[in-house]
């Protein structure tokens, strides 16, 4: 029995790490995979989702509605940022990363000025359950489910919907898509909005578990970065397997030495992986298949 409890505990740790990696990274990965842009304001879209959803929850609306509102708000903010800052820079992807960093600074400090150093949270819902000697948060199990549901929804969106197919066509052969009458600007705008909305979703989902401060976005950045670096440009062939591998490393080190060791270990693993697989896991898989 002790052994089974230990296995459950590890699986819980792994699931928790996996969910955090997937949810932190998928917005960044969608934008990077589809547009070649690394959005350094990613953390601030997460912040936006967290703050909006918490405010809506404080108004007394149910949590799922609040989270959806947070995600939507981040998505709209994303489309505005795309229009004003990203669109003029399509030909200069390396400049986009710098410009989005500027936006990140403005938003973080702006939030601090307008809303103060911290915002009252809404508390983690759903209570806990006990397995063996330890109790576990039910909400975190829901988050694991949400991570899988998000991946499934993205897969359906990119393979089954008109938007997904047009988006992939635009990314692969922009000239042809344009010649066929696709409004490529709209596709870029929606893609960036989708990435921002996913970031907002992560913010909304994790808001009940965290202290809400203007710099909270940075807490997601390392996980999001390493997942995208290992995963490369493809969200299904890259991000998801990367999150599995990194989740295992992080869960192992976390249960052995604590949260920080998990994070450091993950980063070191990534730096070593770069030496072996420069284009990330999906680069490797795609190269084999190309």
């Amino acid at each position: 029995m002790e052994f089974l409890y230990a296995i459950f505990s590890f699986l819980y740790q792994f699931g928790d790490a996996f969910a955090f990696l997937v949810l932190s990274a998928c917005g960044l990965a969608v934008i990077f995979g589809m547009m070649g842009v690394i959005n350094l304001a990613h953390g601030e879209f997460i912040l936006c989702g967290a703050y909006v959803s918490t405010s809506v929850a404080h108004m007394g609306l149910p949590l799922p509605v609040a989270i959806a509102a947070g995600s939507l708000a981040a998505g709209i903010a994303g489309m505005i940022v795309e229009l004003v800052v990203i669109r003029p820079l399509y030909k200069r992807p390396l400049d986009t990363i710098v410009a989005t960093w500027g936006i990140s600074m403005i938003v973080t400090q702006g939030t601090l000025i307008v809303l103060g150093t911290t915002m009252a949270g809404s508390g983690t819902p759903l209570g806990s359950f006990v397995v063996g000697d330890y109790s576990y948060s039910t909400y975190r199990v829901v988050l694991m489910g949400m991570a899988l549901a998000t991946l499934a929804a993205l897969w359906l969106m990119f393979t089954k919907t008109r938007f997904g197919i047009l988006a992939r066509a635009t990314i692969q052969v922009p000239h042809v898509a344009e010649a066929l009458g696709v409004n490529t600007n709209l596709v870029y705008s929606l893609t960036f909005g989708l990435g921002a909305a996913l970031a907002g979703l992560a913010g909304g989902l994790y808001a009940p578990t965290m202290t809400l401060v203007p710099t909270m976005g940075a807490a997601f950045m390392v996980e999001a970065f390493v997942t995208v670096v290992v995963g490369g440009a493809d969200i299904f062939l890259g991000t998801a397997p990367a999150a599995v591998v990194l989740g295992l490393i992080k869960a192992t080190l976390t249960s052995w030495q604590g949260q920080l060791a998990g994070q450091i270990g993950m980063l070191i693993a990534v730096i070593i992986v770069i030496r072996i697989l420069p284009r990330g896991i999906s680069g490797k898989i795609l190269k084999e298949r190309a």
Partner: protein
Amino acid sequence: MLDSSRRASILRLVEGPQTMGRGPGFWTGFGLVLLGAIAYPFFADSYDVGNNVYFFNWLFMAMGLSLIWGYGGALSFGQTAFFGVAGYSYGVLTINLGDAYGLTLLSLVLAVGISALFAAILGYFLFFGRISGVFLGIVTLSVTLVLERFMAQTAGPQWAIGAARLNGFNGMGAMPSLTIPWFGGDITLYPDVALYYVTLALLVVVYLGLRILVNSRFGNVIVAIRENPMRAEMLGYDIRKYQLATFVIGSALAGLSGVLYTSWGNYITPASMGMTAASLPIVWVAVGGRTDLTTTMIGTLAVLVIFQSLTIHGSQYALIVMGALLVITVLVAPKGIVIALVDLFRRRRSRQEGGA
């Protein structure tokens, strides 16, 4: 005989295609600015002089970033990691070794060496793994963010190296300042006129040295790698070694900034490696014009002065101004505002000459 002619040809590299400022006009201006900087302590309160050394401290990191990012084209967004590693190393070393017999100078050299070694190890994996573009940016940024988080949790008494407590989030203090052994008593470099001159001299040496470096054969290769890495490799250069060397030199300069800053304020905190701290060097270097050492220096000083005057007046808007400055620069003058102004001036002058 040969030696002196070789020395002369090396010195000639202080001017060349990789640096914008050249000719008698530029060097006259350089001399006047330098004279002004030397004369400044005679006209100012020594307390202010010591305080303003603060601005010089950052210029080494800015020039290092210009070398790596502007000249070499590698997006190193985590230079603050080397700043912090060197700053903490200096603290640990001096608290343990003390400040007698010029041991603080040894600590300075060792601390910069440690940050260079750290850069060499990290750079080996990155450049020999042929990572490039945005990936390099986000990995280096991750490194500095993780280091910040690591240092922030070292509050407990178990986190001590010898006599030096790391002190977690609150930061490490009470390390001795740099001290120069001298006849009839050591000169301690408190924030004061002596420190001002030492830092200024170091700045001039590093600036001229980097000018020589970027105009040398080595400099030719690193700008070639920025422009077209494949072509550079197909001319027979092992580009990984050049990228690594550039990264180590630039990061050692960030380390030098870290030591000078720590010695100046007798203080270093984990926040010096955080997200905000990491973003500021990007603003300084991008705004001035990262592809040239001189415009980098001018831009960095200008932005630092704006930032400092805003924060001194208690304004919380300083960081917003920095962010906006960065966005506007990228959108309007991607090469940097100082470079854009120089281009504009040259174009206008050549039009006038053409018209005359």
